[in-house]
């Protein structure tokens, strides 16, 4: 098994004349927490959609979990997990039904579903909430559940699109503990965020400005390179040069 889980070369996506993603290249290693930063409209979501097989690149190439993003989208979908910034479980289904649904979608056997779901609930201390409608859970719990469900099929890579938006600091902290745990287990994490303190938690960080990757390194080295105190400063230095607005 290769040590590179995501590899992208000169990936480009144009909408008409507008290059939303402009020749980006990077590699993500197994077990890494890869922070994918950028201001709104910088092209993060478009890039992520291409990696997930939701959208075809205009040019360039790449692989995710060993599959070609231009040709093997269906295979990629089987090997990744995805959690969007908008809460994406079903509010009118119970915790257990949601787990079962997604286990079913990823083709888990009945026995696997049963054991993983039980383990998942124990890990989250959710066992008593098994038959609660997800809609009645607090947001922070929902996000944790959402992450747990996104990884129920043990994907090689999990894509997290602003997973902690609107969540309180304590829950965010707990959420990142879950991310670390998953990364320690060998799952690669590809995460976008607007919180710069979260960027500090990442193994490596890339910053996109105007469709291009402007910086890519560990948080420590980026701070050194830009002679900055924090990731926040690094980000603002880079984002100031942006031509595109919201």
């Amino acid at each position, binding site marked *: 098994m290769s040590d590179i889980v995501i590899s992208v070369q000169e990936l480009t996506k144009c909408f008409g004349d507008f290059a939303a993603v402009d020749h980006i290249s990077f590699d993500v290693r197994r077990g890494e927490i890869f922070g994918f930063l950028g201001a709104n409209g910088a092209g993060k979501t478009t890039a992520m959609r291409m990696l*997930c*097989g*939701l*959208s*075809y690149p205009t040019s360039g190439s790449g692989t995710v979990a060993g599959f070609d993003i231009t040709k093997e989208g*269906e295979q990629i*979908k*089987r090997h*990744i997990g*995805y*959690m*969007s910034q*908008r*809460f*994406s*479980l*079903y509010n*009118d*289904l119970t915790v257990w*039904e949601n787990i*079962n*649904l*997604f*286990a*079913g*979608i*990823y*083709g888990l056997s009945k026995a696997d579903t049963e054991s993983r779901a039980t383990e998942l609930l124990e890990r989250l201390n959710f066992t008593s909430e098994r038959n609660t409608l997800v809609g009645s859970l607090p947001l922070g719990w929902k996000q944790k559940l959402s992450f747990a469900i996104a990884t129920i099929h043990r994907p090689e890579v999990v*894509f997290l699109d602003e997973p902690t938006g609107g969540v309180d600091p304590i829950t965010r902290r707990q959420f990142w503990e879950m991310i670390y745990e998953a990364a320690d287990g060998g799952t690669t994490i590809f995460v976008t965020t607007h919180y710069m303190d979260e960027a500090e938690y990442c193994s490596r960080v890339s910053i996109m400005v105007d469709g291009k990757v402007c910086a890519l390194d560990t948080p420590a080295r980026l701070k050194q390179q830009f002679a900055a105190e924090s990731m926040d400063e690094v980000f603002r230095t880079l984002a100031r040069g942006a031509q595109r607005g919201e």
Partner: protein
Amino acid sequence: MKGNFLSFVKKESLHILRDKRTMLVVMLIPVVLMVLFGFAISTEVNNINVAVVAPGRTDGVEDAVNRLVANDYFTFKGYISQDQIDSKLRSGEVGAVVCFTSDYDRRVAQVEAGIQSSPVIQVVVDAANVNTAGAATAYLQGVLLGSASQQAMFESRMLFNPQMKSAYNFVPGIMGLIFILVCAMMTSVSIVREREVGTMEVLLVSPVRPVKIIFAKMIPYFVISCVVLTSTLLLARFLLGVPMSGGVSGIVAISLLYLVLALSLGLLVSTIAKTQVAALLVSAVVMMMPILMLSGMLFPIENLPKFFQVVSNIVPARWYIDATRKMMIQGVPLVAVWKDFVILLGMTVILIIVSLKKFNDKLE
């Protein structure tokens, strides 16, 4: 990947079951509509108040008036004089006035002897409500043309629906409306809801093929529609007494086809509408109005202006209602409405192709 398809069907069923209110509404609407149209709303004309102007109360006049009195549709309000006609009609006291000429008997005798003569009875009707007026005139004519010789000159027979029950006429229309409501409206709203809430994105990133997501959505609604179909048919047969002498299987067959058509219509709406509200509006305006107005449900297509007659050809409900009406009331077999069936089939195929194509394009 059969497992994931089934878990989807289960999920969709749970959505519907959890939303008890909506489900109740869907199940009850057909019943309410059937009862409403069957008993309360009626285009039949009952209890028309009639006054009579008869300068000479001859035997012939008495005879005619007696027939009027005996008839359930009319309430005889007594004799009035010529100059009261206007005020009685204006005050709404009576809906129609029948005037006999003073030499009624003589003129009738002339007619019977084959001699040309001018009209002997004049009917003055309050035509503020056109439908009532038309029906009243027709009924009055029937009742007053009483004498044997006159009847011999004019005979009409009401086939298939001899009691002229309007409920018969409405049942196919209600079915045409309800299935669009359940299948098209609810599927489109449910697809758009997933897009609006954001769950669709997660589903699209999963290995489930989009087509499967859609079909899994359609199945529970199809089942609900089948339940509605059954209850509508039962109500029509046993509560309203619609004959259905042509057999139920044909009606069921064309209804199932119509259900599939409605589902693909819903899918098409979901590709156009971005929000649930928009989906509802599109369904209501683009689908309900034509069904009510242009399908022959309320107004006969022959009575529409030429332009709308042409437009009505593309309203699927028109063909469905036409076919079910024939099968339910005239009792013809499915073979006899092959033309409607083929047209519906064609529309269904086109709709499925267009909506699936649009749905797939939308994903990019």
